[in-house]
């Protein structure tokens, strides 16, 4: 039944477009894209061509469907952001149509509006960046209600009692067994580590500030947690690497601890042991990194206080340029209203103390925490202007685009609907200079951005918004490219690469915001910003396995400590019915013979 929902029109041809498909080394070549039964194929038969739906892309730019590897779009903290901000909703309203739900919300849209807005902008795949285990049901409920998009969620584990206990005891095998069990139990896709050791201390109104500072009670250090979780990640062989939100995030001078954190997993081999059929690509579609740094902008601050605040991005970029085992997403700041939401409870409290804005905070028992705060990034603010510059520096100073992913850490640095604006800054120095003139002078005085001449090409844009996010999170076996066997997710922009006018950024922005076509699984879902069909997306999660005996031992520990939870052991897992169109990715040798679901 699940499969019936995603059945697509049989064949589709996207004709004569300028194709940008970096994983296949295609850089603006005029090509036809053939899609049969939702998958890209190299050719179609005569009758299939005759019956195919033809999209004329002559003179237009064709890219794989957009992939957002770090966004906050589902779960308890997202909903807290909606609840505490009525003012975010009443001026941003979407009316019901024959096929679409109504919706509201600017920085934190309702689930329906979120799905439509992403699809209208050419994105087809979005991953939720922080799912607390206890809030997994809520996260899956919201993902289930999000239309069109393929989704998955990373589970927050950096302050989990069991992980901290096992890593303190040096029992990496049991830590891996626990993580594997948790991912299967809560249907999680990857491991997220937020302010390791620090959020646990927040229960005592404290934080940690150094990589070797042990936290209260567990006496485990951020370094032990980062190293341990990175090792567990590769022991299990998960599709994506450890995803890290560094300590001291959002504090002046934090670039150093960020760089030192990036060094911790050095030497670990990336291993993806998922059992999957890989679509054809010319370049390797497998990740090279063992650490994926979240929203680098918030971790690339120089200075010692807000008075001498400056960019630390050049130093951080210098390190990343030297290594091959790190990928970052930018978490850029495009100015305007935002709602910050993170598992970093103490970090959010610090932001509340600075801004005095309304703020909500939560301790997730035994697992993690979170905070939510409303914020407006203003060009008149010296600090915000530098944050804007840093968010672009981290993209432009890291030379290899295969180490960067463009995000706003939606809705923390900005809103995902501001991506077109962000792209114009990355593609045009003139656009950056013009914005810098409107900003506080710190924007260029306290960063190196003014001296950066690099302008990204459409090919590089396709890397940082499609190919690389997909590869980094292990989804390039089907997403982020247009090789044979890939999902038929395609974006057609009304942009002629030969006539690209970077002086007219307003037009470019409008064309990026409203692609001519968004195609998902071979079916047109959006046409010039209007939603024309609403298929149900897939939900990806991993099912890693470890040795039976270790799992039994680990489970007896878990049951022993379960008395500290306010939920019963039997009620802890997320039942299958919470997922629509689930795609379970088997990792490591599966002990149970279970067919892949919904391929």
């Amino acid at each position, binding site marked *: 039944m699940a499969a019936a929902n995603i059945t697509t029109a049989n064949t589709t041809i996207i004709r004569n477009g300028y194709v940008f498909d970096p994983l296949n080394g295609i850089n603006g070549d005029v090509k036809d894209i053939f899609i049969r039964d939702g998958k890209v194929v190299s050719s179609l038969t005569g009758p299939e061509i005759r019956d195919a739906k033809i999209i004329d892309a002559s003179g237009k730019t064709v890219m794989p469907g957009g992939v957002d590897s770090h966004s906050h779009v589902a779960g308890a903290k997202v909903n807290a952001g909606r609840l505490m*901000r*009525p*003012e975010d909703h*009443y001026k941003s309203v979407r009316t019901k149509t024959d096929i679409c739900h109504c919706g509201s919300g600017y920085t934190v849209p309702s689930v329906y509006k979120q799905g439509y807005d992403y699809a209208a902008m050419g994105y087809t795949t979005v991953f939720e960046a922080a799912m607390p285990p206890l809030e997994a049901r809520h996260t899956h409920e919201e993902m289930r209600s999000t239309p069109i998009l393929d989704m998955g969620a990373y589970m927050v584990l950096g302050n989990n009692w069991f992980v901290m206990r096992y890593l303190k005891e040096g029992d990496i095998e049991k830590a891996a067994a626990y993580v594997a069990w948790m991912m299967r139990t809560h249907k999680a896709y990857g491991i997220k580590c937020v302010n390791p050791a620090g959020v646990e201390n927040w229960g005592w109104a404290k934080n940690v500030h150094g990589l070797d500072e042990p936290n209260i009670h567990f006496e485990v250090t951020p370094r032990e947690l980062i190293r341990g979780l990175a090792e567990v990640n590769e022991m299990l062989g998960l599709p994506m690497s450890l995803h890290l939100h560094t300590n001291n995030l959002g504090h002046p001078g934090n670039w150093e601890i960020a760089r030192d954190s990036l060094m911790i997993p050095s030497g670990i081999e990336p291993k993806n042991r998922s059992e999957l059929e890989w679509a054809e690509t010319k370049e390797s579609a497998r990740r090279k990194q063992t650490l994926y740094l979240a929203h680098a902008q918030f971790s690339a601050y120089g200075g010692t206080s807000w008075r001498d605040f400056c960019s630390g991005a050049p130093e951080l970029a210098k390190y990343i340029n030297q290594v091959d085992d790190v990928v970052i997403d930018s978490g850029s700041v495009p100015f305007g209203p935002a709602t910050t939401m993170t598992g970093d409870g103490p970090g959010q409290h610090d932001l509340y103390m600075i801004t*005095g*804005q*309304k703020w909500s905070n939560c301790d997730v028992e035994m697992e993690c925490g979170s905070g939510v705060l409303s914020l407006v990034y203003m060009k008149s603010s010296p600090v915000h202007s530098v944050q804007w510059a840093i968010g672009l520096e981290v993209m432009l100073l890291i030379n290899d685009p295969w180490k960067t992913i463009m995000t706003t850490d939606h809705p923390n640095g900005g809103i995902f609907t501001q991506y077109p604006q962000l792209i114009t800054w990355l593609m045009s120095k003139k656009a950056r200079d013009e914005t810098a003139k409107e900003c506080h002078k710190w924007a260029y005085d306290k960063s190196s951005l003014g001296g950066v001449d690099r302008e990204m090409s459409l090919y590089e844009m396709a890397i940082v918004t499609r190919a690389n996010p997909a590869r980094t999170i292990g989804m390039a076996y089907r997403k982020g490219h247009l090789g044979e066997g890939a999902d038929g997710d395609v974006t057609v922009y009304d942009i002629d690469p030969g006539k690209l006018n970077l002086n007219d950024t307003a037009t470019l922005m409008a064309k990026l915001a409203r692609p001519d076509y968004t195609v998902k699984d071979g079916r047109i879902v959006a046409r010039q910003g209007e939603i024309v069909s609403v298929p149900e997306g897939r939900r990806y999660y991993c099912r890693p396995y470890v040795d039976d005996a270790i799992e039994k031992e680990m489970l007896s520990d878990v049951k022993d400590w379960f008395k500290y939870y306010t939920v019963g052991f039997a009620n802890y897992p997320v039942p299958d019915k919470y997922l629509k169109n689930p795609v379970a990715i088997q990792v490591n040798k599966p002990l149970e013979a279970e067919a892949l679901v919904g391929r």
Partner: protein
Amino acid sequence: MAEILLRSKGSIGIMVEAEVICPDIFAAKKKEEIEELLVWQGPMQLPLAEFFDVDARSTGGSPEDTRPEETSIIIEGDVSRVKRIGQSMKAGRIEIHGSAGMHLGAEMAGGSILVRGDARSWAGREMKGGLLHILGNGADHVGCAYRGSWRGMTGGEIRIDGSARSQLGGGLVGGQIVVAGNVENFCGIRQSGGLIVVKGSAVRAAGAEMNGGTIAVCKAIRQFSPGFIVAGHEENPKLGDMQLEGLFTKFTGDYALGKNPKGSLYCRED
């Protein structure tokens, strides 16, 4: 100059959302076009003619001049169940011979609105400019930020000849509000700029959490907010272009919000 007369057809059940009643929208439209403008009533969209008799006429000047500035809307009858009249208006004039519904002149940026009766809650919500003059009484949330927002009125002027109720000028950033009568609770809550003058008295906690701007209450504040300290005494203070009479005590606050608040609260002695 064009004048459009709207005559209420009688009592209204479910409240009507009529942000289309606005000079910017009426300008250059014929009577028939105005009659066909749609308003929401509950789940239904209905033409304006369902609720009003429309009459349009030219009143001197050039009949070709159909700019919003040259457009007046006269409303006759009780429209206290018609919401959002004059919302977001930028120019022109609205005169209401009766009482107006909620959100009158919300987010208005220019032009003027005159109400000869009372106005329900949220009059002048998040107003940016222009003049809103209520000859009767205002209700709650006059010139206030909407739910959840911390930025209320940013410019323009609201005059109330009668009294208003709670949260007048909540989150006020700029502009001025003058009330001839009394206000109730939390007048100027979270104010950061602008001026509020209350010629009568306030019930409770005027200026709570204010961090800037000025409030003057010419009679008593029954329950004074605790976060204010005396900054001096002034005889006949002049606040903006308002000349007040009598001896006032000036307070600074609200210290409940921070260490260095810049709000001023004047209260007449005696």
